[in-house]
């Protein structure tokens, strides 16, 4: 039975993306307002091609796990493990309390790099030479499995994929687990990698925009692909002042746009717009008349983007004021881009995610009174 009086608190945040690694790096990027994309090199028929991309470095994972343990762990799972460990460290959760964790992972594409490598293994040398290790690691829930194994987390585990709505869809499940009392804590994470496959897909399907993305200007594609992991430690709390960043008040996922006006009214609506033209008009329509911000220019376009949006909004709620939208305070549709430093009122903040298939999701976060 769902206990409506329980509150869900985001008590830890672990992020790794093109901006760097950890909450401090994200906060620095949010305050600085700009992250320059790096480059990704793709082997193409006419020679290597470089595309702008927000790549993520997993080297800091060695601070949590011995390199020897990681020797068979692919980049996708390393990203997830890094995000998971950062979130747990940020929350200060003792090792002894990890066993009962529920693990919920969102991934739009799964372990595409190792999947491609698995196919290479039998294309090269025949079906009989297919790599069992690559196959085992190519399964979509491999990141969740590696996290559970290396943390010793024996609670329930769930991996969800819904492309650009993977994050809110999986977050709905995490919230249900907590409200039903299945677990006391959920380690929730979103992860996707830029592999040879996804990079190739981007190269062929998108413009090569080399500047800073400006997703609130809908006239042209300004998207830059990204990869990374964003993890949250969620827990139930009876106390309205429980320590943490913010509360997770509601998750709504469905098709067609959410009814307007949003209820309850939000003081800040963070848009997942990422500079891709297919969704730009839908974001403009859904956000019309709202007080908005958008942080995707700091981490790029990727299915885990909404988890970074949640992390960024959680940081804003904790600090009490809005971070400036990177790239300026204007947009080309009728909405108000909230200036950086604007105090956040007592009302919730919303994170809006849309896809190009009529899907929408709205995540509501609330403020926690911070200790004096």
């Amino acid at each position, binding site marked *: 039975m769902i206990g409506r009086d329980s509150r869900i608190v985001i008590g830890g945040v672990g992020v790794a993306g093109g901006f760097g690694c950890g909450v401090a790096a994200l906060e620095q990027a949010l305050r600085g307002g700009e992250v320059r994309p790096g480059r990704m090199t793709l082997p193409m028929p006419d020679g290597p091609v470089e595309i702008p991309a927000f790549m993520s470095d997993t080297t800091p994972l060695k601070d949590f796990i011995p390199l020897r343990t990681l020797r068979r762990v692919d980049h996708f799972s390393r990203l997830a493990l890094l995000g998971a460990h950062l979130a747990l460290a940020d929350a200060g959760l003792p090792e002894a309390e990890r066993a009962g964790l529920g693990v919920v992972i969102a*991934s739009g594409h799964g372990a595409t790099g190792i999947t491609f490598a698995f196919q290479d293994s039998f294309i090269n040398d025949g*079906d*009989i030479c297919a790599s069992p290790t690559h196959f085992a690691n190519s399964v979509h829930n491999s990141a*969740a499995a590696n996290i559970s194994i290396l943390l010793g987390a024996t609670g329930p585990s769930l*991996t969800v994929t819904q492309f650009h709505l993977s994050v809110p*869809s999986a977050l709905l499940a995490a919230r*249900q687990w907590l409200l039903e009392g299945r677990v006391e804590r959920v380690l929730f994470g979103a992860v996707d990698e830029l592999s040879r496959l996804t990079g190739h897909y981007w190269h062929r399907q998108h413009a090569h925009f080399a500047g800073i993305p400006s997703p609130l200007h809908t006239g042209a594609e300004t998207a830059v692909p990204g990869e990374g992991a964003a993890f949250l430690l969620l827990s139930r709390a009876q106390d309205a002042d429980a320590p943490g960043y913010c509360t997770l008040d509601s998750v709504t996922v469905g098709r067609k746009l959410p009814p307007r006006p949003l209820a309850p009214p939000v003081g800040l609506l963070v848009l997942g717009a990422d500079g891709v033209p297919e969704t730009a008009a839908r974001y403009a329509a859904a956000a019309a008349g709202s007080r908005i911000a958008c942080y995707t220019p700091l981490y790029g376009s990727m299915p885990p983007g909404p988890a970074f949006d949640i992390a960024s909004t959680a940081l804003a709620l904790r600090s009490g004021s809005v971070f400036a939208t990177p790239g300026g305070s204007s947009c080309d549709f009728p909405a108000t881009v909230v200036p950086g430093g604007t105090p956040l009122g007592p009302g919730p903040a919303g994170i809006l995610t849309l896809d190009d*298939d009529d899907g929408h999701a709205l995540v509501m976060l609330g403020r926690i009174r911070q200790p004096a």
Partner: protein
Amino acid sequence: MPPVAITGMGCICAAGQNLGDCMTSIFSGARAPAPPVRFKSNHPIRYPVFEVPGFPEDPAMLRTSALGLHAVREALSDAGLDRQTLAPLRVGVCVGTTIGCAMSNETFCRQAHAGANPDMAPIVQIQRSNPAAVIAREFGLSGPCQTVVNACSSGTDAVAVAASWIRSGLCDVAIAGGADELARITYIGFIALMITDDSPCKPFDRNRKGLNLGEGAGMLVLESESVRARRNRKARAFVLGYGSACDAHHLTAPHPDGAGLRRAIAEGFSTAGVSASDLAFVNAHGTGTPENDKVESRVLREMLPGVPYLSTKGYTGHTLGAAGAIEAVFTAACLERGEIPGNAGFSTPDPDLIATPVREVTKVAGTIALSESLAFGGNNAALILGRGETP
């Protein structure tokens, strides 16, 4: 937890292209695994599989999604629901799969490997074929939409997620289940892991050598009590409880003591408010791999002594993300019939297994059954189903 009514079911697999045909087939003991027809392999051994014969390919979507849609149409018809009835309702979709979301098109990969500019159409097709989204799009559904990718427990987990949506009032109706197609990538992968039998699979048998892959879909319509009362619709079965737990042990091998499976069953019992003595039977995971069957039979013997059990994978093959859903449908249908089929492929007891499955069609007493799934990643899921109100 309050029970959640199942008002419609649909199934397609090698045993039949609808639930009625599947039940007739498995109760007759028929099965006919054979080397794959849809694709070729240069592996020197031709491993048998359970393909769905004659199922048309749809260029607009992956076969996985087409199989899922086929089963959904049957389930909705069984529930007496059509687009018009569904339109004003909050209807969610939760589907488990493995291959249905994998960015793994071999043609694309081969072209890229050969230094060509691969045709992007297969990748676009994958992007448009998310099984839950395909169903929501097809029927114009506006509720939550989720595709679970928990490897071989995906179908079981998806049914439980959807039941949770109904219980908490997120949906009036939920379409839940699993779908997976037979694909070269999984065929070659399981052979590489050396857990595939080169003859028809023999779950729980002394001479078992591994699994046979299969394909198909199982779908259930879950309905809130208020909508069901308004429609005056009887339940075919009920979702009574669910539990899941991770072994946290190995990517592809179960925990040797079945630690996660024990916790999953215990949680399932607790949420359903039942105990082992209430069970009429168990539809086991029973893949036919040496390790799975060893661990599972040990847990069944120790936690559920004397409860009859079987694996239906001897009739369907291992349908991966669809398996838990197909087996949930079979479990509900067997509760309706009051009997279970024999465990196909079992003939010689294994002295290392301390429990053995039923060999032939067996009458069962009771109204509650357990369907369980074990998965790569160490996932274990236990679904407790109750007999419905239909005669």
